[in-house]
């Protein structure tokens, strides 16, 4: 079962221009990279796939059951890493993972096993009892990915997961994603980061669906860029 996007149209305001217009696509298992300039609609598409935005027109069908992305899907089958806030500020990393796992319906033994696995993989064990404000940016981002992976979701959506991170942190994240997604799960990543291209099953240049802003286009053709 693939992620299917059928004639999707979405605009943030009813009178404004659509961010996506009659967009259709199908993403199979593996890692799909959405690339394109800022504002071209990559993040919007991720949120539409997750069901965090309601399409103006068209529909999204998500695995494993082939329905629309509703609350149950979000709870049990989706792992999402946002660009900004990803961890509950008043809870330790361990508690953050526990809340996500509990809402996904994991029992304690399964949660602890998953926590050991992903926190070990992402090098988070020493920070489990720390709160997000005591972590570095890289550690926070790895904790966010651990939180998204804790219930082994069928669909993983990551919005700029390595933005601003050094090569070491990016390397750890890259390896973890390859292991977590494997050949059967779906992972969609919106990113500018070329360091992730090597792990992608497919790369979709999102600019082809969304005309680039004239000013950006003129800057791009400028010799200085």
């Amino acid at each position: 079962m693939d992620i299917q996007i059928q004639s999707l149209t979405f605009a943030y305001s009813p009178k404004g221009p659509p961010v996506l217009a009659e967009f259709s696509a199908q993403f199979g298992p593996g890692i799909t990279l959405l690339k394109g300039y800022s504002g071209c609609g990559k993040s919007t598409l991720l949120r539409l796939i997750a069901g965090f935005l309601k399409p103006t027109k068209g529909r999204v069908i998500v695995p494993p059951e082939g329905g629309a992305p509703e609350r149950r899907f979000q709870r049990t089958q989706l792992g999402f890493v946002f660009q900004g806030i990803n961890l509950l500020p008043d809870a330790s990393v361990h508690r953050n993972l526990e809340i996500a796992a509990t809402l996904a319906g994991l029992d304690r033994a399964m949660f602890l096993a998953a926590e050991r696995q992903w926190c070990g993989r992402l090098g988070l064990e020493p920070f489990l009892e720390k709160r997000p404000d005591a972590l570095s940016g890289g550690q926070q981002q790895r904790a966010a990915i651990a939180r998204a992976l804790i219930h082994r979701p069928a669909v993983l959506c990551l919005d700029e997961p390595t933005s601003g991170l050094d090569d070491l942190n990016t390397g750890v994240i890259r390896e973890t994603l390859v292991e977590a997604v494997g050949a059967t799960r779906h992972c969609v990543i919106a990113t500018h980061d070329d360091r992730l291209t090597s792990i992608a099953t497919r790369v979709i240049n999102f600019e082809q669906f969304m005309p680039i802003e004239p000013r950006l286009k003129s800057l791009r053709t400028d010799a200085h860029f």
Partner: protein
Amino acid sequence: MSTPVLLYLVRDMVCRWRENPFSLLAKAVVAGLLSGMAAVILISFHLSAAEIRRNLESAGASSVLVHEFVPMERLAARKWVEEAVQPLRLSVVHYMEKLPAVAESDVRGGIPVFLVDAEASWFWMKTETDTAMLFLTEELPAGIRMPVNVDGSPAVAVTCPRPEWIKRMVSGPLIVAPRERFLRQGLFGLESYTYFEVPGGADRVRSVVAAINLLATESGYKGVTVRDPLNLISRLDVLEANQEAWRTAIVAGFGGTLALVLGVIAFLEFRERRFVCALLRSFGLHEGVILLRYAIDALLVGNVMLFLTTFGVLAAAGRILPSLGVSEAAMAAMDGTGFFHQDGLALMTFVNLGALLSVVPTALGLRKSIGRVLA
């Protein structure tokens, strides 16, 4: 809902209180002030009603006293009131005449003397002989044979406490004697008192009093005064109606104000926390659970302040009001269950309604889709 989520929500609430104590203080002060004002208003109504009820109880809620100066030419028809109420088959009807003279004893002077006839069974049951007199007083022990001087004639009166109905008629001690002992009448007539009780509520009392007044007017009887509890009853009715209106106003007005103020504060807090709320929702947590956290916050603060303020106001009232002349009986009506049974419900309704309504702005904020909050 699972324990980690519950724990997180409780922790979130406590952290917000710690991080922003002024927000908590503002909520507590507003809830406390409104509760205090409402409690003061309701306590004052409660006390007024208790005072009127006490007066009504001592005056007799169903007692009617007809006082009349009966002129000489109408002496034969002096018991017209008793005859008028006869068809009603009332169980309590007493007729007495006042002697135009006073009695004196060793302990007291100026004691009014009332005369009863052979039909006054209550009197004859208390006397030893048909010539004895009763000295009705609570100031002396019962059964004392007291020498008295009535209109210049020495006599002996036996002390006895006043029956309840006489207390409603005459405020102090009195002497009651058989009419045969004092056949001298006033030069122009006599003063008669007819006391009766009309069971069946204020409406029945009202209609009997109206009939007596009409009969007196139609018959051309002058100097008839009817003393009834209708004025007190109607005052109580008005007060109770006002109290009801105030209860409604407090629930609506104070509840609305509390909802508005707590709602604004809760919404400002929610705006600060909207990212965290959206993140929780992105994990699949239902909006209702987040709303519940804000509702519990408001309900907790509101109810704690309600109880603190109400008990504070009650304690202050217990200390201050007696020194301002509020009777002990009225204060006793304030004790414990009396006030809370009637007005506590109104107070609790306004606070809880206000607290629950205060989450409406947050509920509206939670309608915004996660994708529009978390970019």
